[in-house]
């Protein structure tokens, strides 16, 4: 049976359609979840997509993490369900304390939109299992507030516990993130957030290549669901 992957739409979510399309391309079924939902229903995994939830006129993700659906997402995560936050979704997960750290304005104080090299540094999460250890992939970033920060002790713990999943390739850190961190996971390894956009790199006809496919195909394989052939 095809994997059912919930994709949450907050008011102001923008890349929700793209996340759903990426799930579909690898053979999964995308299930639309609405910010007012109080249950996530029968899904195998959840994606919090990119965008500007509630306009993000306040701190990014600060309003969205209070939405009713987030209580259901937190329960799903606590039960070990795989949850992926992409860009704004990563910001929401940090605000919700489902992931450590925070995302601040880019070091150069400008929105940055370009492909960057990413090293996959941990492959035993559901969202990185589709890659080889240390694999260098290229994914686009597009954000104004993607500079990952945490206090030194937290950063040291993340490193020691292997909670850094994706790192910007040397010299390619686009936003001043601490220790070139592009994506992290929680202690249990089932919740992953990253600033780059894998969902925009799944279709060979489009501009960004297909290096993002592994994230979705790997998820489906990791939870024992069929994956569509390339």
């Amino acid at each position, binding site marked *: 049976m095809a994997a059912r992957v919930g994709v949450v739409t907050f008011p102001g979510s*923008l890349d929700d359609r793209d996340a759903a399309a990426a799930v579909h391309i690898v053979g999964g079924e995308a299930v639309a979840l609405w910010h007012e939902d109080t249950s996530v229903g029968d899904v195998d995994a959840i994606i919090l997509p990119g*965008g*500007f939830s509630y306009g993000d006129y306040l701190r990014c993700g600060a309003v969205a993490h209070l939405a009713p659906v987030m209580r259901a997402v937190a329960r799903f995560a606590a039960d070990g369900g795989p949850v992926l936050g992409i860009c704004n979704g990563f910001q929401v997960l940090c605000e919700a304390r489902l992931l450590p750290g925070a995302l601040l304005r880019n070091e150069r104080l400008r929105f940055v*939109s370009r492909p960057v090299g990413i090293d996959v540094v941990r492959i035993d999460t559901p969202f990185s299992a589709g890659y080889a250890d240390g694999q260098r992939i290229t994914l686009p970033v597009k954000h104004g507030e993607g500079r990952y920060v945490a206090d030194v002790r937290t950063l040291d713990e993340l490193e020691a516990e292997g909670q850094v999943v994706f790192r910007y390739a040397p010299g390619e850190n686009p936003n001043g993130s601490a220790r070139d961190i592009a994506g992290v996971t929680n202690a249990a390894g089932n919740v992953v957030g990253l600033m780059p956009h894998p*969902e925009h790199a799944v279709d060979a006809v489009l501009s960004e290549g297909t290096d993002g496919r592994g994230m979705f195909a790997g998820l489906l394989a990791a939870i024992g669901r069929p994956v569509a052939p390339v």
Partner: protein
Amino acid sequence: MTGDAAVVDVFPPDEQLDEERARPLARELGLTDEELDRIVETLGRVPSVSELGMYSVMWSEHCSYKSSRMHLRGLPTTGPQVLVGPGENAGVVDVGDGLAVTFKIESHNHPSAVEPVQGAATGVGGILRDILTMGARPIAVMDALRFGDPGGWTALDGTTVPVDPRQRHLVDGVVRGVGLYGNCVGVPNIGGETIFDPGYAGNPLVNALAVGVLRHEDLQLARAERAGDLAVLLGSATGRDGIGGASVLASATFEDDGEDRRPNVQIGDPFAEKLLIECCLELYHRGLVSGIQDMGAAGIACATSELSSAASMGMRVDLDRVHLRDDTMASWEILCSESQERMLALVRPEQLDEVLATAARWQVPASVIGEVVEGTTLTLSRRGEVVAAPPARSLADEGPVLDRPRARPDRLDALAAVDADDVDLHAEAARLAGGDLATLLHRALGSPMLASKRWVHEQYDHLVLGGTVLQPGVAGAGVVRLEGTDRAVALSTVGNGRWCELDPREGTRRVVAAAYRDVACTGARPLATTNCLNMGDPTQPEQMWELVEVIGGLGDACAALDVPVTGGNVSLYNATRGAAIPPTPVVGILGVLDRAGDAVARRVRDDGDELWLLGAPTTRGLAGSVLGALLGRGPGGVLARVDLDLERRLAAVLGASASDGKLRSAGSIGRGGLLAALVRACVGGGRGAQVTLPDVDGRAATTDGVHLAQALFSESPGRALVSVAPAHAAQLVARCEEAGVGAVRLGEVGGDAVELDGVAALPLDDVTRVHLDALAGALGESTA
């Protein structure tokens, strides 16, 4: 309210005017004495304050097109591909399979000069609502930006051009504004232009283009056809911001009081627009809307009068029901407010609850403010009393039409007498760069005019909505796939004030051809045109003459290339303290690709591929060129005439070769000539090339300095630089021969330098750094 509103002649005390008070107020609002006389004649009485306010905005240049209207009538606007032509909010073009595409470009020049961030942001927001109004989901935006020279770069003689802080401020603000809005509203930016030229120092140009897709049956029209339908105001609360912003700001030249006009600039809320877009699309798909109009310039006055006039109906509107930010607003302020992110939808009474529930789901405020009625009068009331009762048509469609005096500027003769082609590049290298031609070329490529606009593109989301095939910077046109299909549309915008100031008619023909060629180079079939005519002061006969010449050139070229004009915008009064911008028609051309995967970028792909110059022969073409500007030469020279029939044949060759999958890269040769095209191709592909110079004017290639200047920098029209695998070169040549299109082999891809016939070798690393980083450097930005 009872009775026929048209006979109202007594208004509340704060609305009532007499002849004596009406005249100075009318003048203050920008209406001429003749216009006031006409209003009095139309109404059969002195207008109320609210009516005067409505007429002043609806009859402004921006809304009425009074100076250009009679001339625009001559444009070609029809064709089998055109579903909706000019007159609606945006033109609609059939792209096959029951799908249509709507697109339009509009200016936001004056607001952006006053407040660059919000001016540019609301320019994007406004054009998106034009697209939404047609029933379409917006799928991409582009922006055509023009600024003065920011300085901070190395001139050809090695000196640093002094920094102009005001230009830096404008560039920073406008780019932030475009990004702020587009990124947050979730529509990808797929390109445009960023041009730096001293001619725009006093009047930056900010033109925003949007494109949307719809199924034929979802087409919406701005018509109030059914009496009893309710008028529902959707979106943000109405406030005092932007009263007379677009309409009044855009209808006068700037003097020294820019600061005082800041309250006229609207403030954008892209989040509100995102919700409004999703709400409206849901209403369309559920068949809940019978007519809709966006509210931009002239706000409620414009939306109500246009909806009514288009269907020869009337409307009753109760201004007390408009949701306001400040309920002390006067009636005329409510009517003329240009608060952003608002739409006026017409709905059946029995479907109102469903409409309101949909709006609530998207958190979009909604108020029922009136209803469609029989008759032709717009009856507006406040606190139970009628405050305005004009015939809708007189506002929307019977504004003044002026045949303004025009005169060919004498200076054109002097300009035509200049020999712009008298350039010896070796001599210039000796004069400016110690005889080192490569240094001279590097400096030229590092000028803001020729440098990559990567610094701009990287501040815009070009991926959201998941359809971007060719992103900004990789081709002369952006390409997006239409969701759920293999089809894609290609869009290019081109303007060139340097060409048009020499010869507005021929310059415009050349601009149309350049945009057409950009689209054709991607492999797309050009279909239709939108345009934004950025011009000077129409009350000056010479500037009025330029406007009419530009429109003539536009019509001529669009007819010859079979790309009908489906809409556009005229921006006049782009002049500061008597100095006008060069005439700058910005032309947007839309094309279609049957298979998105066929789209061709301009970057070279593989070592060993052959480089070919296709199309017209290279001719003397330094009139109005970037090289002329870099050498500090004033404007002058005669533009080589564009062969529009050849452009069509070239487009056919490019389209056929792309759909065969045989074209590895293609890029138009325009601003900056063959050198700029080569550098874009090589830097984009990360590969060098060995190139032989082409003949110029039939003279066999030599490496003398005069030939070199033309071969590298001529901007003569009709040419494209392409690459093909060696195995496919013969087929390409045969195809060109059959079509009567020139084909000249220039060399091949490979190596670690752009090598030019042994006269100069530009190491790829150096030229890449210069090309990609120069603009950020000039603007004082780090590139790390």
